[in-house]
């Protein structure tokens, strides 16, 4: 297993959300249900806010994460069922999910989404006192919101993991790191699955 199995096609990393173009979003992408029946006109993706992700969400809750995960903790949410929000609540309870400390690399485009290399690394000294306890990957628009949960500890030395995952469609994907002090840090990235955009 030499460099041949290294995930490829990843985009440059280490950019903040703003640098990744998530400030004023031109975003107007395909949604799961309506890649083939999109409404004639759609506005830009609303800068949704979900706060207290525990107490709710709406169908496009990860839109909140898109607009900046920071919004997660700042504003009240609109309560409608959402599998991702439910999954986040089940996993993390009432705890805040803050943006930062997590680097999440995913190719910007995937042809069919069957094998998508994902790399997550977390800014952590990985000492007995301060380490990453777990890394979770969540999906906005896969049929199931949970993708992978990895448990780590100080013995790992470095909080950097990778996996190959499936993306059902164009969406945002969220990586959350659970620290030894119980805080939660995150990064959300966009991926476009190009096969979605057929006739």
């Amino acid at each position, binding site marked *: *297993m030499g460099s041949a199995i290294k995930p490829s096609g990843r985009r440059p990393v280490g950019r903040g959300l703003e640098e990744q173009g998530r400030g004023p979003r031109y975003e107007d992408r395909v949604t799961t249900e309506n890649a083939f029946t999109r409404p004639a006109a759609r506005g830009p993706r609303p800068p949704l806010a979900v706060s207290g992700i525990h107490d709710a969400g709406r169908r496009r809750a990860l839109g909140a994460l898109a607009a900046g995960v920071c919004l997660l903790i700042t504003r009240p949410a609109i309560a409608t069922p959402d599998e991702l929000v439910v999954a986040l609540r089940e996993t993390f309870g009432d705890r805040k999910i803050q943006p930062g400390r997590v680097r999440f690399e995913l190719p910007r485009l995937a042809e069919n989404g069957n094998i998508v290399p994902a790399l997550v690394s977390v800014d952590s000294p990985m000492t007995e006192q301060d380490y990453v306890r777990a890394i979770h990957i969540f999906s906005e628009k896969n049929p199931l919101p949970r*993708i*992978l949960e*990895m448990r780590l*500890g100080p013995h*790992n030395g470095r909080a950097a993991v990778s996996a*190959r995952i499936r993306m*059902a469609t164009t969406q945002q994907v969220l990586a959350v790191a659970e620290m030894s002090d119980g805080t939660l840090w995150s990064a959300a990235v966009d991926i476009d699955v190009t096969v979605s955009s057929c006739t």
Partner: protein
Amino acid sequence: MSRIGPARVRVPEQAKRGDIVEIRTMVEHPNESGFRHDNMGRPIPRHIVTSFNCTYNGKEVFSAVLHPAVSTNPYMTFHLRAVETGDLVFTWKDDQGGVTTATQKLTVV
């Protein structure tokens, strides 16, 4: 019955004490998501690897819970601090009782 396939892991043969090494793992498995259909449109039953763990001289150093969105032949990498010579034992379990293990020795100098 176990349809869980052979595993491949990549661990450096030796490392200096205190070094952080990268561990690469893959197991052959269809990891059928449960969201595909057969040629008559019937759902193909889910058959996935659901858990993975790695022990280092008997102590768990990494584990994972896998869901249907992990690709066929689940592949994961992680890091490990080399502290003493010993065996790394990798175990995958699927949702039909299938189990595969692999063992690699890490020599610490």
